[in-house]
C-alpha cells in the first residue's frame, strides 16, 4: 500500500474523476505522450510537426510503422495541442478499425462532422491559448484494415472537404494503403524505437514509479521488445507488480523479464539443438548428444519436438532463438548456415500463413539436422 503515499505524477486537466484512477492506470496509458515533444525517438517527424504547429498549416498526413512506437499518441497529442481540451470533441473525429467503416458510413459520418464550418475560439477554459486553426482533423487509425473500396471512396471525400478538413491516416503496413490515397498525404515513417530512447523512456517511467530497474533489466526489456515501446512498458509494469508482491519485495531480474516476454530459456534451447547435432559451445554444458550416430535420429528429434510443443512456447519465438544460435555459432560452416537459413525463411512464411506449428518445428529441426550431418 505504500503506493498510496507516493507523490503523484503531474496531471493534465481532464475530468477529475478520471484523474483519481491514474494510479490504477496501466503505465502505457499513464505515460502516453501528452505533447509531441514527449514523443521520443521520432525526431524527424516531431521536428516537421513542430513547424506545422507554428504555422498551423497541416497537410494531409500518413503515419506508418510497426506497433507501439508512437503513431496514435503523436496525432492525438498534436490535435490536442492545436485545439485544446474544449474544442477537441468538435474538431477531431477519430475512426478506427473497430468502427464501422464501410463507404457509405464513412461518407455520412464525415459529411455530418464536416458540415458546420469551424469557428475559432482561441482561449480555452484551462487558461491557455490554442492556435485553433479553421479546419477539422479526421483521424483514420488502423487504416490498413480498410477495404480497397472504402479507401477509393475516401479519395473523393478528401477532395470534397479539402477546405475544412485534414486527414491523418495511421497504419502499420503502408503498402496496404492504395497509391492514390497515399500520394495525397505527407508520409511519416515511425521507426522502431532505438535502444537509447527506449532505455531513457523506461528509466524515466521507472523513476516516476519508484521501481528499481537495473541496467540488466533495461537491456533485457530492449532485447525482448524489439523497438515496441508499448510492449516493454507492459513488461516492466508486470515485472514490478510481481517483484513488489513477494515478501519481502525482491528486485526485478533480467530473467523475470524474459519469462514475462515468453523467451525460451537457454537450457531448453541448448538441449533442443544438442539433439539436432549442434555442438555445444563453451557456455553450454551438455552431455555429448545422443542424436549423432545413433540409430533413430528421427525418433529422437520427434520426441524432443513434442516435448517443446507441450511446453507451449510460441513457434515463432522458438524459431527466432534457434536462428540466432545457429547463425552465430562458432563451428557451424557457412555452407551449413546457408542451408539452415533457407529453412528458417520457409518456416517463417509458413507460420505467417497459419501453418501447423508442430509440423514446422519438426521440419526445421529435421532440416537443421540434415544440414549438419
Amino acid at each position, binding site marked *: 500500500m505504500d503506493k498510496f503515499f507516493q507523490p503523484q505524477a503531474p496531471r493534465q486537466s481532464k475530468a477529475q474523476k478520471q484523474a483519481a*484512477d491514474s*494510479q*490504477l492506470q*496501466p*503505465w*502505457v*496509458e499513464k505515460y502516453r505522450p501528452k505533447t509531441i515533444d514527449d514523443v521520443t525517438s521520432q525526431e524527424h517527424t516531431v521536428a516537421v510537426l513542430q513547424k506545422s504547429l507554428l504555422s498551423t498549416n497541416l497537410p494531409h498526413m500518413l503515419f506508418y510503422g*510497426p*506497433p*507501439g512506437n508512437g503513431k*496514435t499518441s503523436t496525432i492525438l497529442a498534436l490535435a490536442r495541442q492545436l485545439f485544446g481540451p474544449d474544442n477537441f470533441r468538435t474538431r477531431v473525429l477519430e475512426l*478506427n*478499425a*473497430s*468502427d*464501422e467503416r*464501410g463507404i457509405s458510413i464513412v461518407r455520412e459520418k464525415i459529411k455530418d462532422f464536416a458540415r458546420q464550418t469551424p469557428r475559432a475560439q482561441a482561449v480555452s477554459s484551462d487558461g491557455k491559448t490554442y492556435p485553433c486553426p479553421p479546419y477539422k482533423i479526421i483521424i483514420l*487509425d*488502423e487504416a490498413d*484494415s480498410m477495404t480497397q473500396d472504402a479507401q477509393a471512396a475516401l479519395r473523393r471525400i478528401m477532395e470534397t472537404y479539402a477546405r475544412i478538413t485534414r486527414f491523418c491516416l495511421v497504419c*502499420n503496413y503502408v503498402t496496404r494503403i492504395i497509391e492514390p490515397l497515399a500520394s495525397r498525404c505527407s508520409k511519416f515513417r515511425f521507426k522502431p524505437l532505438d535502444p537509447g530512447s527506449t532505455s531513457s523512456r523506461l528509466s524515466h517511467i521507472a523513476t516516476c514509479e519508484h521501481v528499481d530497474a537495473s541496467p540488466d533489466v533495461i537491456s533485457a526489456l530492449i532485447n525482448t521488445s524489439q523497438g*515496441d515501446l*508499448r*510492449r516493454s512498458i*507492459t513488461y516492466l*509494469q*508486470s515485472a514490478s*507488480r*510481481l517483484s513488489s*508482491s*513477494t515478501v519481502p519485495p525482491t528486485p526485478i531480474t533480467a530473467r523475470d523479464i524474459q519469462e*514475462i*516476454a*515468453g523467451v525460451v530459456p537457454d537450457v531448453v534451447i541448448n538441449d533442443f539443438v544438442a539433439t539436432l547435432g549442434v555442438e555445444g559451445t563453451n557456455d553450454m554444458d551438455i552431455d555429448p548428444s545422443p542424436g549423432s550416430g545413433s*540409430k*533413430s*535420429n*528421427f525418433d529422437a528429434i520427434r520426441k524432443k519436438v*513434442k516435448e517443446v*510443443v*507441450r*511446453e*507451449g*512456447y*510460441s*513457434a515463432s519465438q522458438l524459431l527466432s532463438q534457434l536462428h540466432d544460435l545457429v547463425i552465430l555459432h562458432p563451428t557451424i560452416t557457412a555452407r551449413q548456415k546457408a542451408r539452415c537459413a533457407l529453412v528458417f525463411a520457409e518456416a517463417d512464411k509458413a*507460420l*505467417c*500463413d*497459419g*501453418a*501447423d*506449428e*508442430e*509440423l514446422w518445428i*519438426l*521440419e526445421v529441426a*529435421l*532440416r537443421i539436422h*540434415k544440414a549438419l550431418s
Partner: protein
Amino acid sequence: MSLWVDKYRPRTLDDLHYHHDLTARLKSLAASGDFPHMLFYGPSGAGKKTRIACTLRQLFGPGVEKLRIDQRVFLTPSKRKLDLNVVQSNFHIEITPRLVLHSRTYLPRSSCIYTVNSEVGMYDRVVIQEILKEIAQTQQVDLNAKQRFKVVIINDADTLSRDAQAALRRTMEKYMNNMRIILCANSTSKLIAPIKSRCLLVRVAAPSSEEMHNALEYVAKREKFDLPPEASQQIVEDSNGNLRKAILVLEALKMQSPDLSGPLSIAKPDWETYCHKVADMIIQEQSPQRVMDVRAKLYELLSHCIPATVILKTVAERVVDKVDESIKADIMHWAAIYEVRMRQGNKKIFHLEAWVVKVMSLYKHSFYGIDLDDFEE
C-alpha cells in the same frame, strides 16, 4: 450428474494443482488495481480456461460464477441476422466467436473449428465490435463490485479473423478505464503483432507427467477409490499432456472396469482408428487404385468434420512409425508443405491426396533402393 472434468475443475487460484509460480503471478496481478489485458496461450487441455476462471474469481469474488446465457442477435453489414449465445455474469462476458467441436472427441480444440453457422465465422468482427462497445459504454453498476472494470473473455482467439483482430486494437486502448480483455488461444502465431503488443502474454505449459499423476490421484481420492500406479501411468502416457483427456479417460475406464486392474485398453476415438487404417493402406500397396480407395476414406473423415490438419498429422505420424528411417524426414517434410497449401487453397482433399501420392512414390522408390536425393523440389 456432471463429468469429473467439470466436477473437479479447480475453482480458485489456491486450488490449482500445478504451475505454482504462474499462480502466484496471477494472484499478484489480480491484487493490484491495474490489471492488464491478457493473452493466455498453451497446448490444449493444459488448463488455460480453468486458470482464467480462477483469476476472475480472484478479481471479483464468487459472484462471477453466477452465469446466465443470453441468446443475442447481431446484425451484419448486409442486414442479416446472426444468433449467438453469450455467457455472462455481472462482472464479465464470454464469447466464443466460432463454434468448436466438443472436446469429448479428444480433438485439439483450435484445430477442429468448423463453423456451424458460417455467418458468425465471417462476421466475427461484427460480434466483437458490438459486444466491446456495449461493455465499454456501460459503467459498472454493482456498487459492491471489487473492480471498476468488466472483463471480456474471448475464447479461441487464434481463430479470429484479421478484421476482428483489427477491431480489437484501438478499442483495447480507448476503453481501458472500464474494460479488460482476456484472450485465450492455443498459440500466438496467428495473432497480429499489435494485439500481442497490447497484452500481457501468459504461457500455460502442459502439466508434467508427475503433475498429471497428482491431478488424477486427487480425482480418485475425491471419488473414494484407489488408483493403481500402473493405470495412472498408462493414462498419463496416452494423454500426452492433455489433462482434460486424461481425466475423461480415467472416468471412462473406471466405468468399464471398476477396480482398474490388469492391462487396460484405452479406447481410441473412431476417427483416430480410421486414420490409422488409412496409413496402413498407404503402406500396403502403392497404386492408382489404392489412391482412389484412400481418397474415399479421406472424404469420409472430412465429411465427419474431422479437420484436415488433424487427419494429415495423424496419418503421417502413423506412416512414419512403419517405414524405413531413410524416408521418415521426407514424409514429414511433405506433410508440412501440404498442410500450408491446404490452408491457402480451397479444396482440402486435393492437397491430402497429393500428399498421399507423394508418400506412395517415396515409399516405392525407397523400397527399390533408388536414391532420391535429386527428387527434392
